[in-house]
Structures are given as structure tokens and as C-alpha cells.
């Protein structure tokens, strides 16, 4: 349970890091928080020739909440993102999901951008980026490119980060006025990877008048799924309405059925595909009810 030997690089600046990454190419691996990478190295599931430790690039430890969304630098720890009040106001789903990422001790070290680059479909933050339609900025010696979530997650543990590139920033779009979000999951033990998890965002449909009593109110819903496929699956349903009180999961049962129609999970040692689909159906309804309840689309009828 010790890593095999590697050549260790500890660049002091982004430019230096990109130069080293260009040099070592496909034989290099970036070390940020290391909360996924170190277990893999310790178990010798991977044995990269070069490790490029970016922990000295403290300029990248930022969390910036802006009107259009939250920008998270490569070195921002999960705990820093979770505790950032402006970020929680601009996009509440970040904190809602981060509270379910492993345990606080892991979140003290693990980075949000690192977990995206790791592209584990069981990871909460991959589903958050996917459901919000966020993007990741990749840098290399010759320039930068932004990759949208739909293109960023290529397969299980495979992201669009190419050899020589560093994921320098993730962008999570803000929650529109009047919208609501929620993240719910079922895990065997608290802090474990979820057997199934659902990120939900509910927003008033465009052009829809605000109805004071909230009944029959039409909304657009977006759902992101954890552990339900090789990449974070997303479902979008426009112009739907709960068939009862929006805060009650039962009112969303029909919509949940439609949302999970495209999911194709697999059996593994944790759960059968059938059980996962059952969880997805139940959790989707719960997540939508919770998102509705947290939104401006409630009986108070205030969509800011």
C-alpha cells in the first residue's frame, strides 16, 4: 500500500507547471488534493512516471462568486467552496452537494476541480457541473480552452483533459431568479459513494406569469445523476408542473418517471441496475419537491 516510484515535480508557478506537464506528457499526472489520486497510487492501480504537484500554485486557490456564476480555481479545497457564503447564494447547489462529498476530513484536502478532472461518475460534483451546464477551463503551454460539461466527461474516470493540460478553473452558472435546487442521495454508509444520487434544479418556465397560489405553475426542471452511468447523466424537462402541492414528492411521480426513462445504469457489487432505477425514481421526486420548496416558485409566488 505504498505508491511505486515516480519523479516528483513541484512547480512554483502556473507557467512552470504547464512547461513540466508539456515535457512529461502522457506519463505525467497532476497532484492537487490527492484524495482520489493517492488511494489509486497507494493501491498501485496507477503508476505514473511523473507527478506534478500543483499545491504551490496558491493563486489558483480562489472561489469567486460573480453574478453569472461561481468560478472555482484548481487549488480551492472542497471545504473552502462549501464554506463560501457568496458562492452558496449565487449557486446553492454547490453547498448542498459538497456536504455529501466524502467526510469533512477529505473535503479539507480534496479540490473541487480535481474531482471534476477525476471524472468519477459516482462523484457528486461531476453531476453538479453537468446539471448546471458548467464548464472547465484547461490550460497548456500553447493556450487555453473552455470545455462544456457535456463534452468534459468522456467516460468513467476519463475527462477531456489531454496530456500536457491542467484544469485551472471550473465555472458553475448561477441559479436564475425564482429557481430552486436540491441534492439527495442514498449511500450504504454515510460518506460513501452514493448508490444513486440526484441533483435537481427547478426554474420558472420562460414567459410564465407568476401565479400567487403556485398551483399548476409550469417549470423547467433539470436533473443530474450520480452513479447511474459511465458519465453524469442529465435529464431536462421543460414546461412541466407537479400534479399536486409542489413540496410533496408524490406530486412529482409522473415527471420523475419521464426523467429517468433515459437512464441505463449497470449492476455492480453495490446494487443491481433495477434497484438503482428504483432509487432514481424515488430520489428524483424527492429532489424535485425539495428544489421546489427552496425556490421562489412556491405558494408565496415571489419569483424575484
Amino acid at each position, binding site marked *: *500500500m505504498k*505508491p511505486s516510484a*515516480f*519523479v516528483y515535480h513541484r512547480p512554483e508557478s502556473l507557467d512552470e507547471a504547464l512547461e513540466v506537464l508539456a515535457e512529461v506528457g502522457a506519463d505525467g499526472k497532476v497532484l492537487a488534493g490527492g484524495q482520489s489520486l493517492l488511494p489509486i497510487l497507494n493501491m498501485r492501480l496507477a503508476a505514473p512516471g511523473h507527478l506534478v*504537484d500543483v499545491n504551490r500554485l496558491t493563486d489558483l486557490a480562489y472561489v469567486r462568486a460573480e453574478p453569472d456564476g461561481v468560478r472555482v480555481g484548481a487549488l480551492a479545497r472542497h471545504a473552502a467552496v462549501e464554506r463560501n457564503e457568496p458562492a452558496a447564494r449565487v449557486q446553492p447547489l454547490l453547498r448542498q452537494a459538497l456536504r455529501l462529498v466524502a467526510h469533512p*476530513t477529505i473535503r479539507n*484536502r480534496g479540490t473541487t476541480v480535481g474531482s471534476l478532472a477525476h471524472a468519477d461518475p459516482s462523484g457528486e460534483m461531476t453531476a453538479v457541473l453537468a446539471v448546471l451546464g458548467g464548464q472547465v477551463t484547461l490550460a497548456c503551454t500553447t493556450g487555453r480552452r473552455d470545455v462544456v460539461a457535456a463534452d468534459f466527461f468522456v467516460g468513467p474516470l476519463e475527462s477531456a483533459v489531454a496530456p500536457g493540460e491542467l484544469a485551472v478553473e471550473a465555472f458553475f452558472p448561477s441559479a436564475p431568479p425564482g429557481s430552486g435546487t436540491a441534492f439527495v442521495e442514498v449511500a450504504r454508509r*454515510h460518506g460513501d459513494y452514493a448508490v444513486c444520487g440526484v441533483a435537481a434544479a427547478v426554474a420558472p418556465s420562460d414567459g410564465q406569469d407568476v401565479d400567487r397560489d403556485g398551483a399548476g405553475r409550469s417549470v423547467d426542471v433539470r436533473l443530474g445523476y450520480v452513479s447511474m452511468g459511465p458519465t453524469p447523466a442529465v435529464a431536462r424537462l421543460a414546461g412541466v408542473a407537479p400534479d399536486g402541492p409542489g413540496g410533496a414528492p408524490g406530486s412529482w411521480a409522473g415527471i420523475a418517471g419521464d426523467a429517468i426513462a433515459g437512464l441505463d445504469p449497470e449492476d455492480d457489487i453495490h446494487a443491481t441496475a433495477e434497484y438503482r432505477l428504483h432509487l432514481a425514481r424515488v430520489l428524483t421526486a424527492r429532489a424535485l419537491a425539495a428544489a421546489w420548496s427552496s425556490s421562489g416558485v412556491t405558494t408565496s409566488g415571489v419569483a424575484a
Partner: protein
Amino acid sequence: MTGEQRMPVRLVVNGAEYRVEVPSRRLLSDALRYDVGLTGTHVGCEHGVCGACTVLLDGAPVRSCLLLAATVDGQDVTTVEGLAGPDGTPHPVQQAFKECHGLQCGFCTPGFLTTIAAFLEEHPEPSEDEAREAVAGNLCRCTGYQNIVASVLRASQIRRELRREGVS
């Protein structure tokens, strides 16, 4: 031997400085035990699940088996050896574990002690639920969690008593 890369590393452990030269793949947990000689940090699963190796890095609990020694060059590390007072007075968490039988074999204990000590700094008066949540990332296979949760609550109480007496 093909000459594996070695790194000079400066560790500040419990306030004392240690300059060591270690293979670049050396885990912080192993550096503390082999190179610094502080064997209070226990190594269990070595992939971040059990929590036995938890130490404080600049005051925040982290898994020392999921950190390279080279990464934390120059940073402050607190191990279980650093919790007690200079005169050997047990830390409130240690005192509470003693009073509440919070340990049996003691293997997992260093990780619990460091985790709980940091937790109480941020949450001085936790509820029982919060106390349980605080230790959720640490595994114990023999004592049982009831006494450990009781120890968290008792430690919180001891801290308050000490405050009242003006000791700390």
C-alpha cells in the same frame, strides 16, 4: 538500485522542526513514523478510509496517508503527540476518552483524538448528532461508537470547565 529520486523536506511537527530527506513517494504518515520517529500516528487502511492516520495540517484534520511528505514541506503538522500540554496534562479530548472508556485497543484512537480536537475548536458545544457526524469519517472496530460519541460530548464539557476555571 537505480537511484530513486529523494527530496529534502522540512516538517514542523508539534512545533519542532525536522529536516529529513525522503524518497519522493514517501507518504506523510510514513515520514512521521519512520523519518521523524513519532509513531503515535497509526497507519490502518492506507487509502483514506479508516481515519487512523488523521493529523492536523495547519490546524485542519487531513489523512496523512493521502499526502506526500514532499507536498507539505514547510507546513505545520500536529500529531496526537502534540495534543497534550507541555507538562503532560492530557488534552480535554484525551481526558474525556479516559473517563468515558472511549478506547479499548487504542489503534484507531490517535485519528479520533486529532479529528475531535479540531472539531471542538470550530464547534465547542456540539449536539449528540453533531458529535456522531464529527466522527463519521473514522472507523473503530472494537470500542464501539457509543463511548466515543460520549467522549466527544464530555470533552466539550471539560473544555467549558477549564474555560470557567481560566485554565486555558
